[in-house]
């Protein structure tokens, strides 16, 4: 081969590269638009007034007279504020309780020696395969029998435990070298103090990831809250938004609904943008949409 042929080869390779990149970017951008369009549409619709939205026989892709009325109405006409508060209480208590429970359990599994440890741990692991749908039926009956429907206790208690996170945290705890524990023991540190002062700070990244994933799960939970609450005072956002829709009877106030959807979505999107790397790494390690 001589030099002229090389130049030809190189040029055609370059051309092929450009075509390839164009195809890839077009494809990726297309999917990006499919992902983003619903977000754009809900924001756009939420700033259209009720009247102007309903006057649109052909949907328009922008609005010249944006209004924030729908956002105001979302808090005054509809008790969205109440739903948000409920969801916040539910999320905070459930997540906090879960973190305490799984930390203690993971510590026992990773650090302590006791009879039946392997058996209990195997049992824990096998419970990961049990789908929620199988146990939710009895839980519903249990909560009803204890008269805990329409209470926070009824909402929270069955949602606290997560076997998978015990497993995840136990794996992380086990990576802390034994020497640290023995050193602390020699200094006369109690187990609990060791857990709080040494283990938790070292495993903080995992704990934060678990916390965020649980917060997302709580914020979006729908099925269980729907079963145990039929009083609007205890609705979470998912149920609230569903209620808002069903009561419209075909002639819903769409811009108001969209304003509510935007308000519900903002907290999680904000958390995601702040903790982007942590969340994506955490999910990659085995988070499933709960």
């Amino acid at each position, binding site marked *: *081969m001589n*030099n002229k042929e*090389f130049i030809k080869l*190189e040029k055609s390779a370059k051309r092929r590269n450009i075509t390839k990149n164009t195809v890839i970017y077009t494809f990726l951008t297309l999917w990006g638009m499919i992902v983003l369009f619903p977000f754009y549409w809900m924001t756009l619709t939420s700033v259209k007034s009720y009247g102007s939205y309903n006057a649109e026989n052909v949907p328009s892709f922008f609005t010249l007279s944006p209004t924030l009325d729908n956002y105001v109405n979302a808090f005054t006409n509809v008790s969205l504020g109440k739903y948000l508060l409920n969801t916040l209480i539910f999320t905070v208590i459930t997540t906090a309780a879960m973190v305490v429970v799984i930390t203690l359990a993971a510590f026992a599994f990773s650090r302590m020696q006791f009879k039946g440890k392997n058996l209990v741990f195997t049992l824990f692991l096998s419970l990961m395969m049990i789908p929620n749908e199988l146990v939710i039926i009895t839980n519903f009956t249990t909560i009803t029998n204890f008269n805990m429907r329409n209470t926070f206790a009824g909402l929270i208690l069955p949602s606290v435990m997560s076997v998978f996170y015990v497993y995840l945290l136990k794996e992380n705890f086990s990576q802390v070298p034994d020497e640290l524990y023995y050193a602390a023991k020699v200094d006369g540190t109690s187990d609990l103090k060791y857990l709080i002062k040494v283990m938790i700070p070292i495993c903080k990244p995992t704990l934060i990831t678990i916390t965020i994933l649980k917060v997302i799960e709580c914020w979006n939970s729908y099925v269980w809250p729907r079963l145990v609450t039929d009083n609007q005072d205890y609705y979470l956002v998912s149920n609230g938004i569903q209620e808002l829709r069903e009561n419209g009877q075909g002639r819903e106030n769409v811009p108001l609904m969209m304003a509510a959807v935007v308000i519900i979505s903002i907290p999680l999107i904000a958390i995601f943008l702040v903790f982007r790397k942590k969340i994506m790494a955490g999910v990659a390690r085995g988070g499933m949409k709960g």
Partner: protein
Amino acid sequence: MRVLLQNLTKKFPNRNKKEKEDVIAVNDFTFEIPDGKLVGLLGPSGCGKSTTLNLISGLLKPTSGKIFFGDDDVTNLPPENRGIGLVFQNYALYPHLTVRQNIIFPLQNLKGKNKLSKDQMNQKALEIAKLVQLDGLMDRKPNELSGGQQQRVAIARALVKIPRVLLLDEPLSNLDARLRLQTREEIRRIQRETGITTVFVTHDQDEAMSISDIIVVMKDGVVQQIGAPQEVYDNPSNLFVAKFLGTPPISIFTGSIKAGRLYIGNDNVCSVDIPDTAKVDVGIRPEGFILKEDGPLACKLDRVEVMGRDISVVSQHEAAQTTHIRSIISSDNKVDFGASQVRFSIKPNKLLIFDADTGNRITCNLQ
């Protein structure tokens, strides 16, 4: 196949984005590898030896300079058209394929008139496997093989297409000490039997010296010296090469030259034919020391290590640039372990003088 590297230069953009200056990995490298030789590229990590290998393979493109295989200019040729075989440091064996499938893999890519039938491929794979002595293990998966066996599969895969040039990147670094000795003999044997021009990269001078026909010593992207191993060892062109080659390492002293005599500290060692110099670096190979009661070099005896065939005498000298001087002498010599001082005379051909500023070798006649 003769391989010619002409003014080869490779620059990388600086990883630290604030610094605009490029990092020069290989700087103006010119070298001709004669046909059928085994060449070792040697140097500390980061010296550009792996980059040089990747330039020859075509995985990297040079910033400037040219590469010729025989009379063909291959500088702009993609790797697959160069006719090379490359053995990766971690072997890069496909873990999901058997030994046979791994070796056949390159053959299955042949197209057109070069296309082989299944039987021909198996035949070729078996021939190569026999050459590297793998013929009993053809149906194993890589993770069922020892490190040495994996290494041989990697070599077989690189050889099966009969490359014009075989390249090996740190071929022995993942093996344990015993296997390393065995495998380097193996590489030498395979290279001899096939007669394929071979270039390998290593940071282990022992390895390079023992099997190469030619070694190339590199530092910071610049070639320091090229030559036959013994030649480079005996006549290093600068202090860096002298220090890099040889175990135990060469001992370096600060010396001076007055009226045709070489002084190490205050010890008048020998006569030299260079003009007076206030400061020179003097290197003495460990085997250059001769135990002699009235020798010129007086050292404080630290300890004596018996190694069977040889004795290693560890001592100190005020002018030495290292805390310890190591000398190797035959175990026939009787050393007084309790003495506080030892005296040496020096073999002239094991004593090297370097410019204290540039580190370049000052060649001279010693008496």
